[in-house]
């Protein structure tokens, strides 16, 4: 048996691959790409909601929002750590993000013009993320699977908070209801796009499923999300912005209208409404923080030198 065969039979037997185990290079690279994209998404994802921390409409909502954005930062940290077990450093990964060579979830390239967007992101974006992430809790790579268990628990908490914000708006004044509907209009289609291209055009799926990095196809997950979310929108009294949407008795699924894949491509290629701004913001924070990180290093070195001298 080759190393590769041993590896695949472990995966097939649903055993976990751990950092010290042998693994195919393509498996390693796929994981680094996927975990770091996920980590970057958490970090960039702090910005659209963070935009409302200073303007949250009650002290309770402000506290909950700060805690949520902080959780996202925490998720970024776990995920960078998981990626580091594959032999790449957090600094390298962040360099890739800032250089624009690494991707992050396109959904965070949309703006948050109103408070309702905070609700919509929790409800729809976190909702879609969970749908994507729950299967990864059983991913073949141990550190990633374990990070994901913790993350999913927090995400579903965030999802409920987001839904609760939407419910408060939907039950509120006419202006609040309008705000909620407007947010749903803007976030619905981008949320569906979060599951990635149609299975027919998705290039990574087959290999990733064999490696048990991925367990469902894009379209399967998208369908699951729609089936769960449409009744929630109805419960809120909001209208899903898809004139073609209908319940299909035969398949017991909702059938949705065509997705504008051209928009998906545009945003992916950097021409979404906020791509430039998000990267710019991260770069600025990185650049403006350089002197602080340098100071911490310089101080640590001085301390080491002092300790050595004292010893």
């Amino acid at each position, binding site marked *: 048996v080759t190393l590769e065969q041993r590896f695949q039979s472990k995966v097939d037997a649903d055993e976990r691959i751990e950092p010290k185990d042998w693994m195919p290079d393509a498996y390693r690279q796929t994981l680094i790409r996927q975990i770091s994209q996920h980590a970057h998404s958490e970090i960039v994802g702090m910005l659209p909601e963070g935009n409302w921390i200073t303007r949250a409409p009650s002290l309770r909502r402000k506290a909950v929002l700060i805690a949520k954005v902080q959780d996202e930062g925490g998720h*970024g940290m776990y995920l960078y750590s998981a990626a580091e077990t594959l032999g790449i450093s957090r600094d390298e990964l962040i360099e890739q993000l800032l250089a624009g060579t690494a991707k992050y979830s396109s959904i965070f390239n949309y703006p948050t013009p109103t408070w309702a967007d905070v609700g919509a992101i929790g409800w729809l974006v976190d909702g879609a993320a969970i749908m994507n992430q729950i299967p990864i809790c059983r991913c073949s790579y141990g550190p990633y699977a374990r990070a994901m268990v913790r993350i999913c628990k927090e995400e579903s908490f965030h999802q409920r908070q987001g839904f609760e914000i939407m419910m408060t708006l939907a039950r509120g004044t006419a202006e609040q209801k309008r705000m909620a509907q407007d947010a749903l209009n803007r976030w619905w289609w981008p949320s569906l796009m979060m599951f990635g291209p149609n299975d027919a055009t998705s290039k990574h799926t087959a290999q990733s499923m064999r490696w048990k990095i991925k367990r469902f196809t894009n379209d399967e997950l998208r369908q699951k999300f729609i089936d769960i979310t449409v009744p929630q929108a109805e419960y809120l009294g909001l209208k899903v912005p898809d004139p073609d949407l209908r319940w299909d008795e035969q398949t017991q699924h909702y059938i949705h209208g065509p997705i504008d894949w051209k928009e998906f491509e545009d945003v992916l290629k950097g021409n979404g409404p906020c791509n430039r701004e998000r990267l710019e913001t991260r770069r600025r924070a990185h650049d403006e923080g350089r002197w602080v990180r340098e*100071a911490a290093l310089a101080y640590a070195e001085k301390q080491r030198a002092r300790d050595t001298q004292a010893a």
Partner: protein
Amino acid sequence: AELRFRYATYLGDTSLILAQRLGEWVGHAPALEEDLALANIALDLLGQARYLLSYAGEIEGKGRSEDDLAFLRDPSDFSNLALVEQPNVDFGHTIVRQFLLDAWQLELFEKLQASSEPRFAELAAKALKETRYHYRFSAGWVVRLGDGTEESHNRVQAGLDALWRFTSEMFAPGAADEEAAAAGLGPDPASLRAAWLANVEQVLQTATLKRPADVPFRWFGKRHQHTDHLSHLLAEMQFMQRTYPGAQW
């Protein structure tokens, strides 16, 4: 009752406004660890503010909630220390502001535990634990930046030079805190100074920083004399409540 209201809003406003400033950092800090730490401190301060403003609303007995007090008062109604409304500028200024305030809250909350009003005593016991953690973070960074590189030393010294004039307010008489001391509600502000200064001086020395000279500075946020920064901060913070009066969120 009116004195307890004023004392509670003085302490509550101070925590609230600093939490608001720290909230501006979230997502923008020099590294992920600092981002999370600043968010944590903001959350603790926000918790203090909510406790104190809710209590102030209760005492007042006019049905004002924590949110009414936070979002529907004018700048001239706020009595936070002017120090905490100063802008973030850079991480150096932010850390100095935090450090000066943390060192003061350490002394304040320590003594406030003996307040004749159990609600203040209770808040103080909880807040003291939080403040010890904040202080460890801010004092640690003052030392690292002061004794780090030449640039970091200069920046943190600049922060110190810019903000030092706002520290006299912490210990000066002339507002709710003085009357609160007379009534046994809280410590005499002047009584906090010796320990604060000893503490601050020691950290500055370790950090190789120079303590700025004291200057006569008589404009006190706690007497409702604010710098131009507060009205901008509040315009942002209060926008939603002002725009949609009466709505529930």
